[in-house]
């Protein structure tokens, strides 16, 4: 009985670690063609303003004002990782989400709005 319980525990822990490992390396899985994509709305102040409104409507509830996160489970988007990511990386991440860790896929937003959010996130770094 004890052996079986330990087996199940090991299996659960392995699964959790596997999911965790996937999450930590998620940015490394951005396909090259997505990584290389440039924001077609970059350097357009109106896109940044529009992105702020899309952010307010869909992202604010988790990532809080100015993308600062809550310091606990809701991560700040003003981070080294975002600063170092390409525009294409961020758009890809928005499209994919991270379902295993609570981040929905935002493929339901039109592509233009995802690029507007990327422009906004760049502006708050």
């Amino acid at each position, binding site marked *: 009985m004890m052996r079986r319980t330990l087996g199940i525990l090991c299996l659960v822990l392995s699964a959790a670690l596997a999911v965790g490992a996937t999450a930590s390396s998620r940015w490394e899985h951005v396909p090259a063609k997505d990584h290389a994509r440039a924001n077609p709305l970059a350097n357009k102040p109106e*896109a940044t303003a*529009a992105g*702020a*409104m899309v952010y307010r409507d*869909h992202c604010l*509830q988790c990532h809080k004002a100015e993308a600062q996160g809550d310091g606990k489970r809701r991560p700040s988007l003003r981070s080294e990782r975002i600063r170092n990511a390409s525009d294409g990386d961020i758009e890809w991440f928005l499209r994919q989400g991270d379902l295993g860790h609570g981040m929905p896929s935002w493929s*339901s937003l039109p592509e*233009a*709005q995802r690029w507007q959010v990327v422009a906004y996130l760049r502006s708050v770094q």
Partner: protein
Amino acid sequence: MLMAVRRASLFWAICLFCILALAGRAQEKPYFVTYSQDLEEPGNLELETKSALLRPDGGNRGGAMAMELEYGTRAWWTTELYLDGQTTAQDSTVFTGWRLENRIRPLMREMAVNPVIYVEYENTSGADKTVLEVVGHDGQADLAGPNSELRMQHQHEAELKLILSSNLKSWNVSENFIAEKNLGHEPWEFGYAVGAARPLRSAASGRNCTFCAEKLMAGVEAYGGLGDTSSLTLRDTSHYIAPLVGWQLPKGVRLSFSPGFGLTASSLTRIYRVGFALEFEQVGGWLHHLQGGGA
């Protein structure tokens, strides 16, 4: 008397204010029958009503309403409770049952076509007129009887759907394959629903607006029955086509409207649908906090 009315008005005004203060914004398609890959955001609760106005041949006009409570359990799992009722002219108003459903995204990645598994248990009566799915040989004759007779038919049903959905640029295209089993030794019944929708404008305008193109969605859905295990056929089945319009209002309110048109003799000639949805953000976190789980 006047004082009591004033108190009641004040109470409802405060309730409405609290509801609107808590509400967030939904971003969902205006489908009534078709499901897309969109799940509820984790921790959010959406309250939605879907009403249907219809008149079967040989029956009286009726209105049915499904009240839906949809909760984002995880980013990949949404659970919903439906409470259904209907009212029929020159007849009665009845509660027609409840349904519990779960939608799960088995793949954690966004693909060109995204599968969602849908599992539902229904405990409804034959008087249900919400027509939120059409399977088997469902037809308008099933809806024409008096409520006193229809409500005697108990339907304990399990329903499975395979939802396939794609977001292409600004478009959403979704296909649902439905298999429903009455748990009282009835054959499996099959049906389908397909839909496509998009916002009228892809990019956000960057200003606070209520009646602007990016807040409006348009689309179309088609749905119908495909017979059952003993007669997998299109003969004597109902099929509908329904244009859709959705409007995203401020404070997380969403309205949708759809006139549906029957395409076969057993279909209802017309069915008008109206939807109203209100989304409450992070209800899960709030409840967790109330239980002392918060900091």
